[in-house]
């Protein structure tokens, strides 16, 4: 038991590396927030564009969504960070992490919103069009709110899955939580910083999971 505590919950190590972990939390939070906002907005915009049914445009949207859903984000991160400087494009670690995760989330979000649009009844569109709203206003006021509600449960799960991938930043030296923890671990020779990272992730993501539950229960509409 002592050995367990010594390894995973060493108070001296904890005290020493708490500032580093907190700094890591801050970095993770910033990147996660940026990824969520950019990824969801981009995905929503793509799904809206797709609903106009322009064939060539939709071809590119679908290609994008399929490719980014298929690729492991880590591979893209490594290519951008280590490969792109050779062709003269130098991006910082946090920027690479943000771009890749946002692009991945956008691809999934596009598909989720699109599924939402597809399950809005055809009659809803017809009612909007027949009352002179035209396509764009019917999209905005009638279809979009319904699609968004349908999209929230799967979207929330995807957002959680992708924001957790900020941990991939440790592969390119972004000083987010995991990276700070592994650095601390190699300096201290103790696994305690890793335990601290577990706590840090829980502090961030557990409230998000609870919020997700609340959001899901709130968005079912009033039934007779």
């Amino acid at each position, binding site marked *: 038991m002592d050995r367990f505590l010594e390894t995973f919950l060493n108070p001296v190590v904890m005290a020493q590396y708490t500032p580093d972990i907190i700094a890591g939390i801050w970095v993770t939070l910033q990147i996660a927030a940026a990824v969520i906002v950019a990824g969801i907005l981009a995905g929503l915009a793509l799904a809206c564009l797709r609903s106009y049914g322009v064939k060539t445009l939709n071809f590119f949207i679908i290609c994008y969504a399929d490719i980014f859903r298929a690729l492991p984000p880590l591979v893209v991160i490594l290519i951008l960070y280590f490969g792109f400087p050779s062709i003269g494009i130098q991006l910082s670690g946090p920027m690479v992490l943000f771009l890749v995760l946002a692009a991945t989330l956008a691809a999934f979000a596009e598909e989720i919103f699109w599924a939402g649009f597809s399950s809005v009844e055809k009659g809803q569109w017809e*009612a909007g069009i*027949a009352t002179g*709203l035209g396509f764009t206003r019917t999209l905005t006021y009638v279809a979009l709110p*319904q699609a968004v509600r349908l999209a929230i449960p799967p979207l929330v799960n995807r957002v959680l899955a992708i924001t957790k991938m900020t941990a991939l930043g440790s592969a390119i030296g972004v000083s987010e939580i995991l990276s700070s923890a592994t650095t601390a671990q190699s300096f201290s020779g103790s696994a305690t910083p890793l335990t601290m990272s577990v706590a840090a992730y829980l502090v961030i993501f557990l409230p998000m999971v609870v919020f997700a539950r609340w959001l899901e229960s709130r968005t079912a*509409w009033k039934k007779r």
Partner: protein
Amino acid sequence: MANRPMLEVVALEKRFGTTTVLKKIDLKVSQGELVFVIGPSGSGKSTMLRCCNRLEEPTSGDIIVNGRNIMAGTRRDLDRMRLQIGMVFQGFHLYPHMSVLKNVTLAQRKALKRSKAEADARAMDMLEQVGLAHKADAYPGELSGGQQQRVAIARSLALDPKVMLFDEPTSALDPELVGSVLKVMKDLKSKGMTMVVVSHEMGFARETADRVIFMDGGVVVEEGTPDELFGNPKADRTRAFLSRVSG
């Protein structure tokens, strides 16, 4: 009866692929007239109605509403013309995420650009007219089918349409709820609204329609007053159909 045609369908044709659903349909509906369209399923009556506001795109022909051809002009012109053509669907199609009041004000605000106060007042008038002013704050999911359909009628009426199209407005309703919707339609007729009704409510047609049209196989087989058409149908196909639906 005023004789100015409010809605005129000229040589309307509609093909889906190689099947011709409507074969050169002609129809004139005068101001204030209620034209009732009957026919077996697949006769093209709903398609004809849906072509009248171009929810269904006609293959050829003209649709003239209040003196203007909706087949000519831009998309914007079409959207503006659609404000003059009310449509009521079999499935109601109220917006489930909006209150009854919002359902009735949305197009008033966004398409007619009425102020909120003006749209709200107009909506309450219309809801009053269909007997549902007390449900303004309810959501569609909380209403019965008959109530939903009356809200849908109010939603159309609030835009001051020149003609109202009804696509089987009572077919999705429980029998005991049909009456309330038909009553609203009857009121509308007595206020002078021009109406085209696709329906199977023969009793309503006898009582309220100025003219009944029997369609089969994408053509108008026969038309006349309700007495003529129901009492003394001339075409064999009309007789066969009427005996089936009344039998």
